[in-house]
């Protein structure tokens, strides 16, 4: 870990201003992913801006009956919130399927969104990785790729996004609220928040440099059975092989997104329209452009079966 200077800030404005004043700065909140990466010098900020003092840890009703979740709300608190449990169960379930009790106590809403990939080649600084070091190559392609992406990948990167929460937010059509230098705020639909790797896998979101997430807004609750089906090798404390976030109505229609298959939560509204026809129809459409490796081709079958299970559970 390289040396860095450290400051605490008290307001979003102060945070973004501090970012502007310091070269190579990073915001830190929970720190559960950033410090992990800093120890390996995958991240090497020279200035840390501790945003924990920002009063962004509230969950509030929005005027239209939705929920505004402060960026600093801890994963545990979000999953335990009565409204989230009752009206956004897919989100509570996704959060509870992720990480461990200790990590959820620390990890924040914004930090969870900004988690970086768990690709083992990204984590090994001796190996080429276009995400860690643009232009160095991708060791995962042709390497051990069992956990990695089957769709939306590129010749530069086959990493997946590790967040469970983000997959739930994708079916909930959440909106990410941010503030930039000069106090400019904006709202980004979660659909437009993440990027596919393409030729620039090191750029993972559409946030600008120094743009700070302040909240995640959920629209009014959606009717239907909420579920989050996470499949992994061990029963807990593991990243998904495949996960399915779903909200399914009585008539069989609904919304569905996959985790563990791509560089972002994977959802496609055309495929989703096939839900009443069953999992096979949805999966065929949703994963029609899949380019799996020999190690992860099973994820195609697994995704379809997990989806079928989610549909049958919702109906049952």
């Amino acid at each position, binding site marked *: 870990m390289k040396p860095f200077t450290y400051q605490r800030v008290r307001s979003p404005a102060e945070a973004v201003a501090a970012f502007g004043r310091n070269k190579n700065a990073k915001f830190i909140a929970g720190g559960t992913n950033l410090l992990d990466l800093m120890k390996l010098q995958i991240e090497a900020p020279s200035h840390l801006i501790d945003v924990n003092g920002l009063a962004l840890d509230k969950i509030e009703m929005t005027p239209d009956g939705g929920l505004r979740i402060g960026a600093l709300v801890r994963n545990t608190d979000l999953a335990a919130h009565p409204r989230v449990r009752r009206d956004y169960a897919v989100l509570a379930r996704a959060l509870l399927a992720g990480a461990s009790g200790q990590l959820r106590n620390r990890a924040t809403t914004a930090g969870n969104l900004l988690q970086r990939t768990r690709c083992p080649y990204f*984590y090994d600084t001796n190996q080429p990785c276009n995400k860690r070091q643009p232009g160095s190559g991708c060791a995962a392609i042709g390497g*051990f790729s069992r956990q990695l992406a089957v769709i939306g990948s590129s010749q530069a990167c086959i990493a997946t996004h590790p967040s469970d929460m983000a997959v739930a937010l994708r079916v909930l059509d959440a909106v990410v609220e941010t503030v930039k230098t000069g106090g400019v705020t904006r709202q980004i639909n979660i659909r437009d928040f993440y990027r596919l790797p393409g030729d620039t896998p090191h750029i993972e979101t559409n946030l600008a440099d120094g743009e700070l997430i302040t909240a995640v807004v959920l629209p009014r609750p959606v009717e239907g059975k909420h579920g989050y089906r996470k499949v992994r090798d061990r029963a*807990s404390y593991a990243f998904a092989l495949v996960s399915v976030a779903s909200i399914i109505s009585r008539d069989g229609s609904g919304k569905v997104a996959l985790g563990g298959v791509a560089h972002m939560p994977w959802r496609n509204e055309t495929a989703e329209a096939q839900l009443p026809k069953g999992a096979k129809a949805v999966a065929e459409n949703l994963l029609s452009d899949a380019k799996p490796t020999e190690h992860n081709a099973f994820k195609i079958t697994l995704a379809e079966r997990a989806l079928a299970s989610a549909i049958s559970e919702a109906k049952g």
Partner: protein
Amino acid sequence: MKFDAPATNNPIDQLKVVGKPLDRVDGPLKVTGTAAYAHDRYDSIPNQAYGYVLGSAIAKGKIKPMNVSAAKAAAGVLGVVTAENAGKLGKGDYNTAKLLGGPEVDHYHQAIAIVVAETFEQARAAAQLIQVEYTKADGSYDLHAAMATAIRPEKIFGGEADSSAGDFDKGFAAAPIKFDATYETPDQAHAMMEPHATIAAWHGDTLTLWTSNQMIDWSTGDIAKTLGIPKEKVRLSSPFIGGGFGGKLWIRADALMAALGARATGRPVKVALARPFMFNNTVHRPATVQRIRIGATQQGKITAIGHESWSGDLPGGGPEVAVMQTRLLYAGENRMTAMRLAVLDLPEANAMRAPGEAPGMMALEIAMDEMAEKLGLDPVEFRIMNDTQVDPENPSRPFSMRTFAECFKTGAEKFGWNNRNAKPATRRDGRWLLGMGVAAAFRNNLLMKSAARVRLDSRGTVTVETDMTDIGTGSYTIIAQTAAEMMGVTLDKVAVRLGDSTLPVSAGSGGQWGGACSTAGVYAACVKLREEVARALGLNHPDATFVDGELRVGNRRIPLAQAAAKKELVGEDQIEYSDVDKKYQQSTFGSHFVEVGVDAATGEVRIRRMLAVCSAGRILNPKTARSQVIGAMTMGVGAALMEELAVDKRAGFFVNHDLASYEVPVHADIPHQEVIFLDEVDPLATPMKAKGVGELGICGVAAAVANAIYNATGVRVRNYPITLDKYIKGLPEVA
């Protein structure tokens, strides 16, 4: 004391303290964070500096001269040691690859430098400033590709590479029912919770290492040999060890690099290997490919059994002895086993919990399940049918005791085995497909010399001293129990000092020999101390007994403390063995029963129930012994369901080298576990009449899980771990 005849009645048989399920004597220290592991020993020596070890970025090749100037100039840095300035180094007897690489690199993450600094943060950051230029060489990283050039190894722990009895080829060809299948087990990591760690300090030419090590005497010798100094100039201290499982049987880079860093800087140096570095830097259980052939009569009597195994290691290394149990476990007149060793330039392969039997039983016990099905026999019945009371290669040589069949009968009854449907994929509970599986457990009982010294002081306190280690096995407790029983005192009157090279040389912790052999050594020393006590009190009488803190002869009762009132009394001895283990085959036996649920849609496995029945002679402490077995069962679940070091066959390294990507079981994976110990003693083992149990528990578990998954799904997987991707296509359609 020479153990050369079956044990007769002795003071241990009183079982006033031995054999009781007592709490660990070191328990209060461990639960309060006051047991000091290597990295916790701030008080051992002042002014400790911090070392950080840098590993090779390539698997094979050469380092051109490194540029360490930036690292040396970094804040707080006290020194940098590489092969260039380390001085001449040898290699320990128990190491295959050298511990400090350069200029030649033998494997990925082989240590190539240590940076010593005032703080951990400074040392870690400075290590990243070392610039290394490599010339890569081609290496061999793929076991399957290397099998063609595998050779018959000469040096093997526990025997020859090949064995035969009768005529296997003829016997197998003639067998009415034949089975022939090939199985694969992956590379596995010990992944003990405490990273390898050492504090090293020099006083003149004398080196002290506060470290984490299972085998004090081996390692004292090996560090001396590596550094080229006399063994007497090295002291090792390792009173608490945060898990080893074989991974700390020898010195590793933490010990050597701390010693080199301390020598270069003149400061005590503290080193712990970083977790993501451990998987490739240290050792692992190597992958195997195993072919098993079984021929039997229509009725199910085995007439031919053959087991071949291929594994790989660095040049100079040895094979995984995965066929050993097949020489002894089942009857059958025509037999063969063979081991072949390929050169692989992956990190060093070496012993991990039950080397040989653990992966060997993973394969053999699936094969037995498959053969039972082919014969239309219940797998419990098939195993009992082929039980043998003698070494099947040498029928004149009996087992010291063998209650193998009893393990299965007891287990089947307790587990409700008769509720199993032999037809797979027939039982269901909601979304879960249910299956039951069974497998044998088998591990040889190895005998090792073991010495101890026992002191009696004027307060009547008995102090046991031996370099035996407690790696979680409960050594402190069973040694205290042994001394208490022998000297007729309560447990609180016994103090135990372990894990220090200044103490008498014990069996150490490995190969499940530690518990039985180290207590036998303490027994021998106590026999000596009893003689000293009797002599001091002038009561040298054959009927003397040691009871309730007193020496008793007839009506005379004298407190022990009185014997040592003027001068501390000392008894020191070691246990050695004649040829009992040659005349009698000594092994431990068991059965594993497992019930699983397999998610019908996704194939996720959840273990529902587990039972082990063990036959291991006298159980010295049923509480700690049970813990050994449930721990081994847990590791067996890991082997069955998730553990695999994934090899990058291009770059030659284990890719998943941290605890997030090398998955081991967590709480959620493990249900309540049951263990039954058959009530027995083995007088041919040691005076304690006990055998090892810590490795028995892992042997066969994975196969029992595998067989249960087959019973649940009807899909047979022959390469571990049995992850859902290997059978998901065979699961029923999702409704």
